[in-house]
């Protein structure tokens, strides 16, 4: 499904964010990405939807080398990839419902079908009451849930979530994580970057740990810290 072959990423500033990553992620699997701040989690996710290009190496998604996509193929890749951005990236001029609908409008989904799907994701993320609010009128956690809702509304085959519970209380975080695991069970490939140790420990999924751009641990069903510290 997703395959990294000798991938490195050096930012124009000279920062080496990823250092020779080799990695395979199966279709329909659920994977945690952990690591200290600045270890390269977001960069790895950005490579998968082509926000950034790798400096070297190849990345295969859906059997295609996405490093060599033509200009027209990039939107298609992104349409098939739901992304929960670390900084939400909501359109400020659109309401919650419109932000979510945007992912469907791109695909030309009929209005009736749109309404149905939006209604259902609003329910899943407990945002029904805020459908008509603008992002600036929401709390941090509410904005984060809108970002989740937009990422899952068109049922993409790949779902990338970058720190999707950073602004959520423990109960809401647990619900969102349960939602993401449920989505993985339905066949979607889910990659979640997170710092939420309790949830990682609890869920016992594959955990890939990055440190300074290198994969330092890769455990099926592991906890947050293999050689656990006191927290």
């Amino acid at each position, binding site marked *: 499904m997703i395959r990294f072959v000798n991938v*490195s990423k*050096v930012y*124009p500033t000279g920062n080496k964010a990823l250092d020779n990553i080799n990695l395979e992620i199966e279709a329909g699997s659920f994977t945690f990405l952990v690591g200290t701040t600045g270890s390269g989690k977001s960069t790895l996710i950005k490579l998968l*939807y*082509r*926000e950034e*290009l*790798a*400096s*070297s190496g190849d990345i295969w998604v859906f059997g295609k080398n996405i490093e060599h996509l033509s*200009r*027209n193929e990039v*939107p*298609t*890749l*992104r*349409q*098939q*990839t739901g*992304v929960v*951005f670390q900084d939400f*990236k*909501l*359109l*400020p*001029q659109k309401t919650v419902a419109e932000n979510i609908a*945007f*992912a469907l*409008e*791109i*695909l*030309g*989904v*009929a*209005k009736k079908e749109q309404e149905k799907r939006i209604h259902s994701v609003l329910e899943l993320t407990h945002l029904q009451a805020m459908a008509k609010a603008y992002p600036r009128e929401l709390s941090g956690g509410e904005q984060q849930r809108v970002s989740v809702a*937009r990422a899952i509304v068109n049922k993409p085959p790949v779902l990338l979530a970058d720190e999707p519970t950073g602004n959520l209380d423990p109960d809401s975080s647990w619900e969102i994580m349960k939602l993401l695991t449920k989505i993985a069970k339905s066949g979607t490939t889910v990659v979640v970057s997170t710092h939420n140790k309790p949830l990682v420990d609890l869920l016992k999924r594959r955990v890939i740990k990055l440190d300074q751009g290198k994969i330092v641990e890769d455990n099926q069903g592991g906890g947050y810290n293999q050689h656990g510290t006191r927290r």
Partner: protein
Amino acid sequence: MALDASQMTRQWLFSLQQGLQNMVRSPFMSLVVVSTMTVALGVLGFLMLTLSDLTYISQQMSTQLKIVVFLQDQQTPESAAALIEGIKGVKAPVVQISKEEALKSMTEELPDLKKLLEDPHTHEVHNPFPATLEVSLYAVEKMAEIEAEIKKNVPGVEGTEANQDLAEQLNQIQSAVQLVGFGIAAILFLGTLAIVINTIQLAVHHRQREIEIMHLVGAPDWFIRLPFLLEGLIFGMASGLVANILLFFWRVVPLEQLKRMFTFIQLQPGLGPLYPISALVLLVGLLMGVLGSSLSVHRYIRFEKSAEKGKIPV
């Protein structure tokens, strides 16, 4: 993922609807853009109007210049006038001054002269003055040409007189007005273009983040571009229309007052050149709007492209 026709239609409709929504939701932006474009287009139209009036005035002025034709005694002023009126470029009617009228005006001016011309025996007055014709022209630059034609083709012409110097000068002024006017219009046109494109660029620059987000969630280029084009089109149309309303108002109210103040200055009758100019203003507005926004959005899409090429070997 192939798209069927109804999907495409829906995408188009949505994309267009976005253009309208954007305008309504950024009223400040829309106002600033439209007002700037209105000013630029209005000034352009206003100047073209003034130039057209100036050309007309200098043409009118030059019709004050006349060719004076002196006739031999055997030629009657009537038949010569008829012949001259037949020449192309001559403005009818040709004014006729008979030998008698010429004598009368001269002797009135110089009473001494009368006595000198009178035969002391018969008291008959000798009349040395020829009959003259005053020929007005439509275009002063034809003066030399028409003067030559009169001399050549009208029988019984003793001589002609024309203020060639003044004619030449007026002629040059007309050409200068046209040339400089064209230059001004061209400069203003480019200025309007630059200002409109700059303004729209600023407006789009402000939406850079939105464009980025739309790109990141998978919107294709055309899907992002279309609403901006529509916006640009509407901006252009709105400001073109407002500019035209101002121009019509200017033409009807203050210009009419100017006319009354300066009765000697002959302005073009009715709304004059207003129709072609207002059509041009509208067209320029529309084109600038569309061009400006498509160029600006292109900038951001181009930026991303170049970033994508930025592969650095490790």
